[in-house]
Structure formats: structure tokens, C-alpha cells
């Protein structure tokens, strides 16, 4: 039995009745609401949540929204699958206003209580269709491109982050930056990331960050949620602001299945805030430091090697004139030796050639002397030979008898035997036939 409450004094000067105990007033409010006429409503389902006893959803259209609830048993009796009654589905519901008055230990809640069997799915949500139309419009205007054309620095000095002040995304961003070894300047621009006021605040934060001129890249992060929770990131004004911002924006609104419009217009879309933070710093700072140290060492090696090479070259050049003169001297000595050798060879050859000529001349002289001695003897022999020449005999009146074969006929018997003979005189030859008796000597 709760202790009876003492009624406190009212506010001085107030003309309002009371004060009344809140529980009793809440009960009265519940009764008042329950007496309102029961009606049918239509709109789109958002934020559908199923608990063991009840099902909660929001019914929305472009002008407003109403929290609704129904008993889980009544919902299950409808036989609707999760996909049929997904966020964005168009439904008609029937029921009336209700109010749970709460207690000292539980919070009150207001809802439109849907009666058993009074829910009908009427079609896909209009908001999703609007979203699709807006996406096509922004795309047609070329607003998906400008952010992607912005140069994202590999090593930003200052990173801006737009996120909820109390969300887990904040820690995830820090974790991602730590993983990159980045310890630069981080500027937080906190803004609500859910509900109807979120989009203008996010857009303002983005514009303020860009306006400082000190931020190299901006991360927009949210820890996830249903598409209904993320609907502020599909706001047309916000998306146009992002598209035309001069600083690259990396979006990470943590939704895997449905893509928000800020994902399309941003320079880069990441699935998690951690990933977005890592993408904001493409360079791994610790590895980059090691690389720079390695570069410096290699440059030093090349520089030393180049200086050593230059010193060696200079030394070689300084030695070059002396070496050149020595080389020329060696070459001249060699040439001189060759000339001397050639001279000696020439003298020797000339001498040998002279000796050979002298020998030939000597032999010729000896042969000439011998010829002078033999000439008279040869003349005598020639005369003797001419004296025995048959031609000379024929000239004196003798004739030479030969047979037809040219053989000399030396006897009368041979002449008879031959019959036809040839008589050769000093001037010519005549044929003759042997006839008559022998005239033997």
C-alpha cells in the first residue's frame, strides 16, 4: 500500500487548478484518450519492432507520424512475413488512442492501439519511391560526381568528424585513426544523427567545418540502424550541400542493405566509421615514417657513391696527361725500332740482290768468252756440212731416185722392182716408169 501523498502548495500567483497527483491525472488522460472515436488510418510503416508481448511501429506520411502498437498474438495471427511488413510498407490500420500511464518504476507511453485483425498491407511505401526519384534527380543533375573529383590528401593534417556526441561511432573513428598511426588535429562537429532535426544540423556542421578552411577531409559517421533511423541522410538539402562542398566528405552511416543518398553524393562511402577513419588517412603513418627513413638512407648511399665516383674520375683525369705522354713516347720508340729494323732488312736485301746480279753478269761474261773461242770451229763445221748436203749435189746435175713411198732407190734392180719411181732434180721432181733390159755395168 503506497504511502498517502501530501498535496504541496501550488505555484504562487498561478490561476491554474491543482496541483493534482500525476498518476491520477495520467489515468484520467488514458480514460480520455480511450474515449476518443476509433478510426482507420493509413500511412507507411517505419521502425517496426517485435517484442515478446507487443509489436511497435510508427505510421508515417509526409505530414506527420503516430506511434502504434498491437499485441504480438494479434500480429502473429495476421500471418504477415517480415518482408511483407518491412519499413516503408503502406498499411491501413484500425484502432484507437491509448495511453499507458506508467508507474514509479516504469515510463509512460502513448500509442495508437491497433485492434485485433485491423491491419492490412496496401502496397509499397511512398517514401521509398520518393527516395528513388530523388536519387535519380540528383544523379541526372550530376551531383554524384563533384565530390569524387575532389583530391583527397594522403596525409591530412586536420580531419573533421560530424557525428552524434554520445554515439559509439565516435570511438570507432578514434580507433580507425589510431590504427593508421595518425595523431593529427581532429575537429568534432557534433550533431543529432537521427530524427527530423538531424539533416539541417548535419548540413550546418558540414558547412561550418568547410568554412574554417582548416579541414582537409570530413567524415560523417553514424553507428548504424534501420533505414528509418538513417532517413535523415537522404535529405535533399543535406545531399545537395555535401555534393557542392569544397572539402571531400567520407560517409559512413552504417547501413549495409539500403544505401542512403549521402552515400551516393559523398566522395567515398564506407560501411563502418572505423573504415571511414582509415580511408580518411590512406597513408599508414608508421610505415610511411619507415619508408622515409629508408629513402633517406638510400639517398645517402647514392650520394656517397656519386662523390666517390667523382673523386675517382678526377684522379684518373689528373693522371691522364702524364700517361698520355708516356704512351706517345712508347709508341715513338717502337716506331723508331721498326724503322731501324726495316732499314737493316732493306740493306741486307739490296746486298743480296747485288750479289745475285754480279753472279749473273759474271756467268754471262764467261759464256761470252767461250762463244768467241768456239766461233771459227763452228764455221768450219758448217762449211763441211754444207759440202755434204744432197741438195748441193743435185744442183750439180745428179738426181735422187725414190719410189712412190719416198724410199731412196739405190740400185737398178730396186728400180725395176719398184716400177714407178720419182726422180728429184735440183729444181723439181718428175715421175718415171722403169722399162727395158738391164744395162749392167
Amino acid at each position: 500500500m503506497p504511502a498517502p501523498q501530501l498535496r504541496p502548495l501550488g505555484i504562487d500567483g498561478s490561476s491554474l487548478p491543482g496541483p493534482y497527483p500525476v498518476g491520477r491525472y495520467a489515468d484520467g488522460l488514458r480514460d480520455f484518450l480511450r474515449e476518443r472515436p476509433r478510426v482507420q488510418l493509413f500511412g507507411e510503416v517505419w521502425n517496426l519492432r517485435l517484442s515478446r508481448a507487443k509489436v511497435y511501429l510508427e505510421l508515417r506520411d509526409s505530414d506527420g507520424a503516430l506511434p502504434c502498437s498491437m499485441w504480438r498474438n494479434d500480429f502473429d495471427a495476421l500471418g504477415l512475413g517480415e518482408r511483407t511488413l518491412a519499413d516503408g510498407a503502406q498499411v491501413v490500420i484500425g484502432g484507437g488512442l491509448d495511453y499507458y500511464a506508467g508507474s514509479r518504476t516504469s515510463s509512460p507511453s502513448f500509442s495508437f492501439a491497433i485492434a485485433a485483425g485491423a491491419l492490412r498491407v496496401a502496397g509499397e511505401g511512398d517514401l521509398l519511391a520518393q527516395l528513388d526519384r530523388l536519387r535519380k534527380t540528383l544523379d541526372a543533375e550530376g551531383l554524384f560526381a563533384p565530390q569524387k573529383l575532389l583530391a583527397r590528401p594522403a596525409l591530412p593534417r586536420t580531419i573533421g568528424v560530424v557525428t552524434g556526441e554520445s554515439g559509439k561511432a565516435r570511438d570507432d573513428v578514434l580507433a580507425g585513426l589510431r590504427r593508421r598511426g595518425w595523431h593529427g588535429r581532429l575537429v568534432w562537429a557534433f550533431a543529432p544523427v537521427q530524427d527530423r532535426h538531424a539533416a539541417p544540423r548535419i548540413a550546418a556542421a558540414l558547412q561550418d567545418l568547410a568554412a574554417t578552411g582548416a579541414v582537409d577531409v570530413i567524415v560523417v559517421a553514424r553507428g548504424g540502424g534501420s533505414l528509418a533511423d538513417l532517413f535523415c541522410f537522404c535529405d535533399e538539402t543535406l545531399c545537395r550541400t555535401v555534393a557542392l562542398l569544397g572539402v571531400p566528405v567520407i560517409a559512413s552511416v552504417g547501413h549495409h542493405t539500403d544505401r542512403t543518398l549521402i552515400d551516393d553524393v559523398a566522395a567515398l562511402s564506407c560501411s563502418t566509421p572505423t573504415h571511414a577513419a582509415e580511408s580518411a588517412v590512406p597513408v599508414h603513418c608508421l610505415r610511411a615514417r619507415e619508408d622515409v627513413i629508408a629513402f633517406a638512407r638510400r639517398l645517402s648511399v647514392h650520394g656517397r657513391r656519386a662523390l666517390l665516383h667523382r673523386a675517382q674520375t678526377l684522379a684518373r683525369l689528373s693522371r691522364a696527361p702524364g700517361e698520355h705522354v708516356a704512351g706517345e713516347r712508347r709508341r715513338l720508340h717502337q716506331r723508331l725500332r721498326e724503322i731501324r729494323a726495316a732499314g737493316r732488312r732493306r740493306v741486307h736485301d739490296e746486298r743480296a740482290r747485288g750479289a745475285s746480279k754480279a753472279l749473273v753478269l759474271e756467268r754471262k761474261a764467261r759464256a761470252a768468252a767461250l762463244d768467241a773461242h768456239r766461233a771459227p770451229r763452228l764455221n768450219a763445221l758448217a762449211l763441211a756440212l754444207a759440202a755434204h748436203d744432197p741438195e748441193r749435189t743435185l744442183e750439180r746435175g745428179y738426181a735422187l731416185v725414190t719410189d712412190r713411198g719416198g724410199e731412196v732407190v739405190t740400185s737398178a734392180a730396186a728400180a725395176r722392182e719398184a716400177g714407178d719411181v720419182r726422180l728429184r732434180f735440183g729444181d723439181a721432181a718428175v715421175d718415171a716408169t722403169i722399162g727395158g733390159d738391164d744395162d749392167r755395168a
Partner: protein
Amino acid sequence: MTEPENKLALSYEAASARLEEIITRLDSGQAGLRETLELCKEGRMLVELCAAELEAVGRGLEELRLEDLVARLEAGAGAQGA
């Protein structure tokens, strides 16, 4: 921004990419003596630039709210104006 003009003109990624080009050229052994010395000189300048950039994001994480940054920038602008 208070960085010198030459640092603004050359970003970290451009500097590191040029450094890699220089090292590749030097490693190839095709650079002559004069070119080697010039590349070493340019490389040392780029190493200093990259090291300064890395130093700027390695001193320790500085977290501040947008309002603080704006106030700081305004204070800086005011000091410059005065």
C-alpha cells in the same frame, strides 16, 4: 594555413611519389654523375618535406570541438589584424 608556399605547392603524396621515382632512377644506375648529384639534392629536400608532414601528424592527437577551432581561428585572425 601557416605552411610555407613550397610545402603547399607539393603535397605529401606528390613528394613521396617523386621520391620513389628518384630512388628507382638512382637504383637503375643509368643516371650520370651530375644527374645523380642533382637527384640526391632533390631527394633530400623531399625527404625533409615528407618527414615534416609525418611529424605534423605524429606529435599527438589533438581533439577539439568545431567551436574551439573557430574561436582559435578568429583569435589568430584578430591577432594578425592587430
